């Protein structure tokens, strides 16, 4: 007892100074020379700050089947280039089926396909049909790429909202977590994020017979697509069908910019697209070769318009019209600029908090902490007198330590997190209760005050460790399996338990040692 190690006192002082410095940014702004690692305030969770929390599921398998479908185009091109005639090209899930017309071309075709599609495994041809299956490793790569790309695209769209510090991160293998603090309009956010914004340009098959195609005999290489729903004069709804060439001439990937503009003919809001260099060249070629024909602009699977190409267009820009409101035109420009989603995304979880609820939660949480803390402080002081006051000093130190630790490790405070702190107040004094009760017992056995203190601390120690470790186990499991706000509870509870072991044992011991050493001989303990 008389020899409380010096280094422990220095350790306590060092922790105290670091805690004070680390906690300060939560109260006031710190000067620029303040250590960077101690300059961050604790961040508040969305449930306290208000904002939108979304978990999106990326339909990654769609991205894979989409890429297989695109490879049909590639197959068509390479076969044509080598003048190999084919009968049928089709995609089925992860498999490409390619039927060659003449037996004589089989060997050539086999070599060509093997060279072109090294991401596929090719089976021996059956009746002149090659069947190529996408390798699982390549498919996985595509899935991963789709999620990464979706994150980039969504980030672009959310940045356009102009909010501060949005969070967009991958969660698991095909989910994306989106948090937009301080933003309220969840309907708008969901709409902006969820749109695929797939933009395609296809030629209208002017020679094909639309009426015949509608009855089922669609010319090979063609596809029927529809315009937006319109209401006829008699009140019935209809959608204009178009017979289009399947091949996509240009896509949203070849856009460099999209801006809201006013369509001069009808004085309506429109979105003007600018193609990038590659897109401009393709567009130039397309319009040169097909003067007099129509090309369809398809947005998210719906034919937006199909203007006639009157002359070659070299400038590289196009316009999308369609009685937009200013807000709709603005949103469309944003999503086209940010690019298309590589696969559809779906909201699978949402937790959005209005700003007033967050503010209420902070106030109620702080009230609980303050009232709970004061009650425990009073109770301990009455019950254990001087030693109770010592425990109270440790408890306040503990609160300070939690605040500092949460700030330094960059933890996020959530509403359940506040509950964790409140609970820690109750449990932090437990270690002191154990020690003090033990000291009282030792005194009853007739030991001298100093011996009783020594015995109390020594005997209570292993109990404290055992009891706290079990609670810590529960907290760690909670952190592992919990999600979102519940994790916040696990973090504050764990930090609180660890902090309390330091303050309740080491700090109180130091105070007790200091006060008894001054008095020299201690006759009676105020416990």
């Amino acid at each position, binding site marked *: 007892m008389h020899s409380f190690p010096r280094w422990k006192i220095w350790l306590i002082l060092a922790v105290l100074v670091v805690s004070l410095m680390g906690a300060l940014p939560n109260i006031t702004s710190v000067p620029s020379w303040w250590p960077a690692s101690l300059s961050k305030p604790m961040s508040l969770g969305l449930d306290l700050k208000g904002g939108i929390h979304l978990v999106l599921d990326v339909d990654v398998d769609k991205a894979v089947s989409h890429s297989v479908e695109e490879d049909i185009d590639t197959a068509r091109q390479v076969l044509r280039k080598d003048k190999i005639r084919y009968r049928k090209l089709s995609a089925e899930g992860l498999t490409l089926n390619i039927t060659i017309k003449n037996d004589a071309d089989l060997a050539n075709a086999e070599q060509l396909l093997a060279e072109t599609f090294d991401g596929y495994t090719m089976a021996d041809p059956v009746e002149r049909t090659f069947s190529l299956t996408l390798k699982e490793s390549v498919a996985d790569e595509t899935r991963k790429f789709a999620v990464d790309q979706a994150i980039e695209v969504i980030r672009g769209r959310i940045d356009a909202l102009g909010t501060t510090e949005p969070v967009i991160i991958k969660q698991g293998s095909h989910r994306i977590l989106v948090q937009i603090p301080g933003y309220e309009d969840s309907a708008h956010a969901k709409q902006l994020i969820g749109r695929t914004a797939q933009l395609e340009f296809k030629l209208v098959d002017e020679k094909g017979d639309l009426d015949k195609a509608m009855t089922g005999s669609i010319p090979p290489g063609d596809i029927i697509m529809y315009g937006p729903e319109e209401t006829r004069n008699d009140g019935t709804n209809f959608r204009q069908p178009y017979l289009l060439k399947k091949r996509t001439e240009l896509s949203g990937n070849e856009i460099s910019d999209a801006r809201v503009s006013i369509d001069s003919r009808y004085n309506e809001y429109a979105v003007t697209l600018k193609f990038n260099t590659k897109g401009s060249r393709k567009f130039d070629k397309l319009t040169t070769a097909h003067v007099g024909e129509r090309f369809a602009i398809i947005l998210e699977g719906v034919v937006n318009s199909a203007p006639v190409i009157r002359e070659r267009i070299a400038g590289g820009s196009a316009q999308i019209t369609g009685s937009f409101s200013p807000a709709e035109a603005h949103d469309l420009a944003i999503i086209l600029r940010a690019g298309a989603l590589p696969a559809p995304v779906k909201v699978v979880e949402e937790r959005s908090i209005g700003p007033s609820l967050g503010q209420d939660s902070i106030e109620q949480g702080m009230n609980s902490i303050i009232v709970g803390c004061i009650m425990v402080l009073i109770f301990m002081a009455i019950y254990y007198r001087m030693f109770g006051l010592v425990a109270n000093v440790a408890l306040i130190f503990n609160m300070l330590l939690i605040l500092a630790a949460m700030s330094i490790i960059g933890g996020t405070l959530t509403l359940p997190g506040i509950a964790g702190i409140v609970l820690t107040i109750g449990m932090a004094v437990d270690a002191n209760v154990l020690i003090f009760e033990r000291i009282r017992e030792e005194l009853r056995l007739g030991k001298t005050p100093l011996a009783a203190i020594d015995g109390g601390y020594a005997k209570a120690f292993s109990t404290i460790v055992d009891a706290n470790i*079990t609670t810590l186990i529960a907290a760690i499991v909670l952190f592992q399996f919990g999600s979102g706000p519940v994790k916040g509870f696990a973090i504050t509870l764990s930090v609180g338990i660890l902090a309390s072991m330091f303050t309740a044992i080491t700090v109180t011991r130091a105070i007790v040692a200091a006060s008894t050493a001054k008095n020299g001989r201690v006759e009676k303990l105020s416990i």
Partner: protein
Amino acid sequence: MQLISPDLHYDFIGKRKIAFIISAVMLLTSLGALAVKGLNFGIDFTGGTLVEVKFDQAPAIADVRDAISPKGYGNAVIQEFGAPEEILIRVQNKNTEDSSTISNAILDGLGEKFGADAIEMRRVEFVGPQVGEELTRAGIMAVLVAMLAILIYVTFRFEFRFALGADAALLHDITIVVGLFALTGKEFSLPVIAALLTVIGYSLNDTIVVFDRIRENFEINRKRKRPESETNVVNGSINQTLSRTLMTSLTTLLVVMALFILGGEVIHDFAFALIAGILVGTYSSIYVASPVMLALEGRFKQDEDEIKEMEARP
């Protein structure tokens, strides 16, 4: 100041039959409530949409229903939440459409009827069916893993019978707290699982402190010339730690009560689970964990005696 007189020697173990009856009644009531009424699972587990709205003036529930009926949600669960101006609306997921837009439709409907300025979105939660399943699985896993980890730790630090006693107390506490949720029809949500795990940690904390003393006293007892019976030692240990057990429960209850009364509606059920857990956890660390441990001791001892007897035979 002292809550418990140091001279107190209350015969806890002697009352174990009464405690057994009390526990049995609580457990059977809980299991009965679970079987008959079942738990009122929140959208975290069932999937669905929850919208909390604050109105300028307290609306009639019927008017709220009228407002959202045209949108197709006339069968929603609508209730007051904490204050008459605050309304909670709960809707099941639909299979046919993108369920994440349900909240938009509800807010639109309310805006059309009451005026967009008269209502304020407080909270929107939507859990898709798949996520609901995942959260359920994670919740069950969390409770099981926590119990297993604790069983291992206590076995490692004490003895197996102590671990079984501790886990019996845990099972007892969890069943009763969950049963209380079934009985009161309170919503069983994700934060309640967090509260359950905390109860596990807390109840165990209490049990460990008693066990620690029992182990210490067992060792002292073994060195005595005339050892006392294990029952006496256990009884003494519970008495010695009693004032600590009650003190800690009291301080923890104080703060959790503060949370329950002042913490707001969102945290209310969470605090309720903690209060129930602390009360039943304190009880079980005295009346369940040690008696179970002793009961196991009796059986193992008999087994040992039988083995000795068999070995002694020619």
